[in-house]
């Protein structure tokens, strides 16, 4: 009994030290480019890009597996700053096509279940149990996470209406 206990203890201790040493010795730095791109991202981990969060998206962009335009909440500005960082050429028209969206609660169907609140990465939804919920437009990135959670399909995405303040002159045709 004593032999078994002591030999296993010794074995554990030796292997532990070895492992600890190895982890220091063979430590791999996180890719600094990925970290830099990730720092540019909105950080809401909303998943609109199709990756499991901003870190995943950053890695894919840095690795050339995803376009710099893949993050809808970041919009053109983000795509440009990533492209500038990585020295990429990008097609900005791809970003404009999608157009920003906002979540809207249809008030007479909302049962106040609070499931959408838990799904929102930016805490954009307000409301308590058994109360009609509402979306703060300033905070919503239009990721759609809440839409899937709603049991009564009360929450949906609507395109953000274009206003005079946001309208941009079209680029003229040139010869």
């Amino acid at each position: 009994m004593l032999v078994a206990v002591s030999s296993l203890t010794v074995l554990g201790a030796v292997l532990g030290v070895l492992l600890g040493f190895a982890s220091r010795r063979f430590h791999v730095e996180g890719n600094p480019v990925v970290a830099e791109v990730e720092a540019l991202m909105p950080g809401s981990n909303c998943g609109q890009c199709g990756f499991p969060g901003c870190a995943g998206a950053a890695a894919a962009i840095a690795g050339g597996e995803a376009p710099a335009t893949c993050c809808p909440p970041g919009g053109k500005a983000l795509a440009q700053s990533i492209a500038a960082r990585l020295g990429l050429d990008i097609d900005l028209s791809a970003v404009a096509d999608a157009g920003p969206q906002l979540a809207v609660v249809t008030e007479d169907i909302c049962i106040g279940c609070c499931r959408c609140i838990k799904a929102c990465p930016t805490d954009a939804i307000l409301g308590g149990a058994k109360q009609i919920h509402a979306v703060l437009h300033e905070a919503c990135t239009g990721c759609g996470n809440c839409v899937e959670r709603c049991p009564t399909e009360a929450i949906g995405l609507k395109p953000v209406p274009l206003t005079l303040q946001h309208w941009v002159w079209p680029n003229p045709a040139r010869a």
Partner: protein
Amino acid sequence: MGFLDKIFRPLTRSEPWGVHPDERKRPASETPIRRLPPPPLLYLPLSQHVGAAAEPIVRIGQKVLKGECVATAKGNISAPVHAPTSGEIVAIGPITAPHPSRLEMMAITLRSDMEDRWAPLEGLADPLARAPEELARRVAEAGIVGLGGATFPASVKLGLGHRSRIRTLILNGSECEPYLSCDDRLMRERAGGVIRGAVLMRHATGAREVRIGIEDNKPEAIAAMRAAVDGHADVQVCVVPARYPMGSDRQLIIELTGIEVPAESRAADVGVLVHNVGTAFAIHQAIDLGRPLVSRLMTLNGEALAQPGNYEVLVGTLVEDLLAFAGGVRGEPARLVMGGPMMGLLLPSAKVPVVKGCSGILALSATEVARDEPGPCIRCGSCTRACPVGLLPLEMNARIANAALDAAVALGLHDCIGCGCCAWVCPSRIPLVQAFNHAKGELAAHERDKKRTDATRRMAEARSERLEREAREKAEAAARRAAERKAQKAREAAESAASNSEGAPA
């Protein structure tokens, strides 16, 4: 380069900037101002100024008198809206905006009762003895905005005077855009009111002198203003050469004071303030008579119009009603423009209201708007010579065509005043200004996107912090409960032990 630049800079500067487009001010400029009767319906946009939209304070069905406030200013940079005639509020909702985008804007609809009855008005007695702030407040309450077209709330600009020590107040009477003559008519027919406004503004800003810049193609206006100035030693009428865009703030400041406003700063930073002559007249009306801004002078012009002329128009009148009053149009106008032909806005239809910043409506015929298809740039350099700011329009356009907006900014895109001289002279008919407007809009949109991304990041961080905190609090609460239970148990055990020992037979 820098050295040579220093030597040649004065030479290149004295080279005439700008252009001389066909004036086409006559015959409209020779007809006296006519007053338009109130139309049956008026549409009052809540956003007729730079800054936050006004907030309606009337209900549907409410009766209002002429000059009554129907929407109040919201925030520091904003302006209220007043009923231009007496009548009943019939709707508050979106209407098509007088803007090329065809988008909608919020507006109050007023049905005129055709009586045009003023609300009781009260002018300010002896305003020159009052505090400047009081005058500025009156101007703010009257909803006066820059009537030259910039529509910046006039009171905010007056307030700048005291914060940044204004030395010279400039009144802009140059009216350099072709076709327009409403400022010309105003100075000819109501010179006394304009000068009175200038004196009030001088008091409100604390400026030492007032200079009124008028182009040399308006001799009657110059004579009328000179006659009205008589007796005001510190108000001076200055004649400037007729050249487009003389009415741009920066150009007029150089012409009248010799000061060049640095690219990144405002005129107030160099001790100068520029206001339009129409604004001065509106300020006189607001302070001396207590009248809010409910009407303004507008030029109706263009070959498609039967009777071109200058009209005093109630703000909110439909362009359609306006054209009908001015004798109607001959055939279908090829283009309707709000403002001048160089910087005005193309109107989506005649079913839009005129707003405070509208200096004219042009109904242009097909021959007037004929313009060849754009061709390639032949690098003639005409645009560079014409640009009043000294930019390189051809280079900026080439950058924007390649979506290299940052490169265009490096070439000075933000200094472009959108005057249109470059496009006007371009022999290849390249729509240069539209390219610059497009680029400015895109850059502003990027700026908004960036702010939004930052805000999202902050909110996501706040959320993860909240989740962590909640988890921690839960864990702490659980630990506390466990500890309490333990203590309770221990107490119970101790008590039962004690009772056991008590209960034990002695």
